């Protein structure tokens, strides 16, 4: 069943998304059943026992204890949703993060009001960063370009480029206040809490191009929506994700390295 569509959620762009939508879908089915069941009984009782139709109340009312079963049923269903689905899926999200050598590691640092994206480059090492070097315009992360590990690092602002079908590990951090990294299509959301570095992972499985044809919207773009109130620019804290084929991504990365590897980036 296509829950994503039924629930009016954003089209899926990540491998684990279907699980989540499924769980949301079934939970809503459960809620609907309860609501209709209780609601039906409720309305019927109101009709049937209105004063004009039932002038004398009955002291005992319902004798059967059927309701106990319904309550037990509710408990059982909730237990299933919880132990069979929610807890295991969450465990997969946070405990089974793929090894870094099989994944692309990206550091995303929130700040009022932008997302700073940092790739380690081919050497897989993030260059040293130092708050003393921070410059809002030229070097928002305070990346020390003199550090050898930083030579092949790539940094961008609000532009997250990702290869399709490869596990992505995003290391979330924040420079100032709490932000929240949310990409609706990926079904990921995680607060970026200053003082912590929090990893999240997902596998984007639909390229931006592919999504454009699917949605029939030539301007389609994956958007990073800040979900945590972070000040007056909260509504404007918007980033973009571009999912490309492995080749396209590789090319993009190399171009960037050429462009930024030189001592003075952002020209």
């Amino acid at each position, binding site marked *: 069943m296509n829950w994503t569509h039924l629930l009016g959620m954003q089209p899926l762009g990540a491998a684990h998304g279907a699980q989540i939508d499924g769980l949301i879908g079934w939970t809503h089915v459960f809620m609907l059943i309860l609501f209709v069941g209780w609601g039906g009984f409720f309305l019927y009782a109101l009709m049937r026992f209105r004063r004009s139709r039932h002038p004398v109340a009955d002291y005992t009312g319902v004798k059967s204890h059927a309701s106990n079963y319904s309550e037990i049923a509710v408990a059982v269903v909730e237990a299933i949703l919880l132990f069979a689905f929610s807890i295991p899926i969450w465990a997969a999200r*946070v405990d089974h993060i793929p090894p870094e050598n099989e994944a692309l590691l990206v550091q995303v640092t929130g700040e009022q009001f932008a997302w700073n994206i940092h790739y380690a480059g081919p050497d897989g090492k993030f260059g040293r960063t130092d708050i003393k070097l921070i410059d809002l315009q030229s070097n928002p992360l305070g990346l020390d370009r003199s550090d050898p590990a930083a030579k092949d690092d790539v940094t961008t602002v609000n532009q997250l480029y990702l290869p399709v079908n490869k596990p992505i590990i995003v290391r979330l951090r924040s420079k100032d206040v709490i932000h929240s990294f949310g990409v609706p299509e990926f079904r990921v959301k995680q607060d970026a809490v200053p003082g*912590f570095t*929090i*990893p999240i992972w997902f596998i984007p499985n639909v390229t931006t191009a592919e999504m454009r044809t699917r949605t029939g919207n030539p301007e389609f773009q994956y958007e990073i929506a800040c979900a945590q109130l972070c000040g007056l620019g909260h509504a404007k804290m918007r980033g973009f994700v571009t999912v490309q084929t492995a080749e396209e991504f590789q090319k993009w990365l190399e171009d960037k390295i050429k462009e930024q590897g030189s001592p003075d980036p952002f020209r």
Partner: protein
Amino acid sequence: MTSEHAVDHHDVDIDKHVRIYVTVFVALMALTIITVAISRLHLPVHIAVSIALLVALIKGSLVACYFMHLISEKKLIYAVLGLTAAFFAALLALPALTTSNGFWIH
């Protein structure tokens, strides 16, 4: 020793209580000296902490039981304090769990 006793009678068992108060006072003094003395030994942190808290706990219960008459209080008061103790525990459990790695920031 709760307030239901009229002001005039029970002088005797008041005297008994007063004696208890004095004993407790001496005990508290002693324990105070002991904690300070122990802290001088510079024991490894976790041991120091547990001892210090243990002593504090003893002193605290002495004050609560005798000065605050908890030892001979009504059930209802116990109930209220029991409830409080439960939530107090929840409160103290929180930071312990939060910081220990893997529990919170995965």
